[in-house]
């Protein structure tokens, strides 16, 4: 098997896994929400309701396609697709496990290890908001438009703080490659212990970037009915909802990679390379990812949401200055260590 083939297979697997995780995130969300609310949650579709995502998928697939008369037809179709593609693209640079060495060949569990991986993630994630913006604008509905505008301004504001929180991290790791960042965190040297403030800012921004509560203003039901996807039905809506869960999955993966040592875990990292290590590292990675997904949901079902101007205040007046302070502090510590 050529290297290209292996990569292709891997990419397909990653896509498949992202979709699968996203699918079951919807199920998990409903179950977790139910459990947090003293309910049982879906339990009729299959045992414990585990076929629920399939039911939703099939139902959405067979629902009537609907394009409002006054909508911009092409943009209306493009929005969800664009959102979905950008959501899926991000996973390309995330290392999902330790290298698998077989017959002397090294198979990296990462689609591609580019040396500006972090920048790539930022680039693609910020493209994602175009999907929302296009969809919301094209549907020619005031609620959608408001949602889209909210999404755009929210993403732009929080990207700044997010980027700045990463600057401090990069100053420390002096690399942009995700694989290297993960490798540096072997053992207990997780970045979260060195960059707690950076982590806090990053996770808040991650919530905002994925439009999750308490920052779910673009689609908050009680204010904007459905927000940017008010006019979407059928699979186009499915794409939006799905892509959101994929985004959540990717954000969790990035959080785990940058701050929680990715696939590293003290005992696992010190094992000999081999199949067991690879599998265990993948398990570790997904364990961390699931923890963060759970956190996302837990927070969503606990907190009230912000108001638009408060959101902006938090982003611009609190998080960005904090991120700057964090950079300065990190710089000072690095300088002190060098001296």
């Amino acid at each position, binding site marked *: 098997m050529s290297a290209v083939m292996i990569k292709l297979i891997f990419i397909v697997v990653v896509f498949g896994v992202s979709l699968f995780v996203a699918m079951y995130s919807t199920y998990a969300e409903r179950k977790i929400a139910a*459990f*947090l*609310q*003293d*309910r*049982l949650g879906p339990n009729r579709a299959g045992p414990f309701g585990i076929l629920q995502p399939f039911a939703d998928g099939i139902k959405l697939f067979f629902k009537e396609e609907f394009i409002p008369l006054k909508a911009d037809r092409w943009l209306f179709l493009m929005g969800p697709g664009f959102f979905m593609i950008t959501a899926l693209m991000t996973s390309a640079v995330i290392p999902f496990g330790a290298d698998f060495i077989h017959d002397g060949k090294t198979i990296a569990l990462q689609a591609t290890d580019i040396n500006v991986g972090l920048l790539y993630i930022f680039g693609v994630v910020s493209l994602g908001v175009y999907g929302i913006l296009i969809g919301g604008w094209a549907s020619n509905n005031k609620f959608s438009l408001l949602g889209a505008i909210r999404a755009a301004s929210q993403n732009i504001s929080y990207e700044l703080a997010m980027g700045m929180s990463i600057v401090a991290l990069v100053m420390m790791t002096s690399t942009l490659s995700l694989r290297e960042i993960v490798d540096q965190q072997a053992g207990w040297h997780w970045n979260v212990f060195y960059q707690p403030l950076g982590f806090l800012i990053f996770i808040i921004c991650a919530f905002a970037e994925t439009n999750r509560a308490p920052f779910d203003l673009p689609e908050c039901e009680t204010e904007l009915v459905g927000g940017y996807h008010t006019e979407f039905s059928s699979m186009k809506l499915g794409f939006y909802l799905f892509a959101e869960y994929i985004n959540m999955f990717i954000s969790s993966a990035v959080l785990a990679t940058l701050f929680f040592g990715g696939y590293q875990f003290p005992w696992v990292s010190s094992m000999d390379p081999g199949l067991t290590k690879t599998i265990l590292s993948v398990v570790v990675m997904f364990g961390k990812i699931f923890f963060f997904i759970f956190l996302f949901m*837990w*927070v969503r079902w*606990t*907190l009230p949401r912000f108001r638009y101007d408060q959101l902006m205040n938090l982003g611009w007046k609190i998080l960005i200055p904090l991120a700057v302070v964090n950079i300065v502090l990190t710089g000072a510590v690095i300088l002190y260590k060098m001296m």
Partner: protein
Amino acid sequence: MGVIKLTDRIKVMERKPMSFMERIYLPAILKGMGITMSHFFKKKATISYPEEQRPMSEVFRGLHVLRRDEKGAERCTACGLCALACPAEAITMTAAERKRGEENLYREEKYASVYEINMLRCIFCGLCEEACPKAAIFLQNDKMAPASYEREDFIYGKDRLVEPFLLKQS
């Protein structure tokens, strides 16, 4: 804006300014998350309805039934008070004279040959039960009017309202 005092029972809810801990969001958030997490492992309150039934009170006002007396004769004497008392005007009836030989079927000399309740109109207020001087109409505490597909299904005639005779004996 001041407080106007009319009585001595007034209790002014002074607003405390936010403390620093409240200002930085996180403690309140973590506390809230603690509360929700404590419910995560709690016993669930849900009653899985079609399989489990929630116990209802003795006096619950459910589906109507037209009662029979101890001997199995219909109690209703078609006096029309229930129809009169019904705020929704959901009850219609036609009275008929009892004929010779029907004494075991109807308790009084008059009986309702047609007795219909429109369950879609009915608001289950229980006024008909209260109005009945013969304890003939009764709102069961364990049965509810079921949902159905057609509007015609909800006009309950005597066939569905009168208590089954055999059940009474056993």
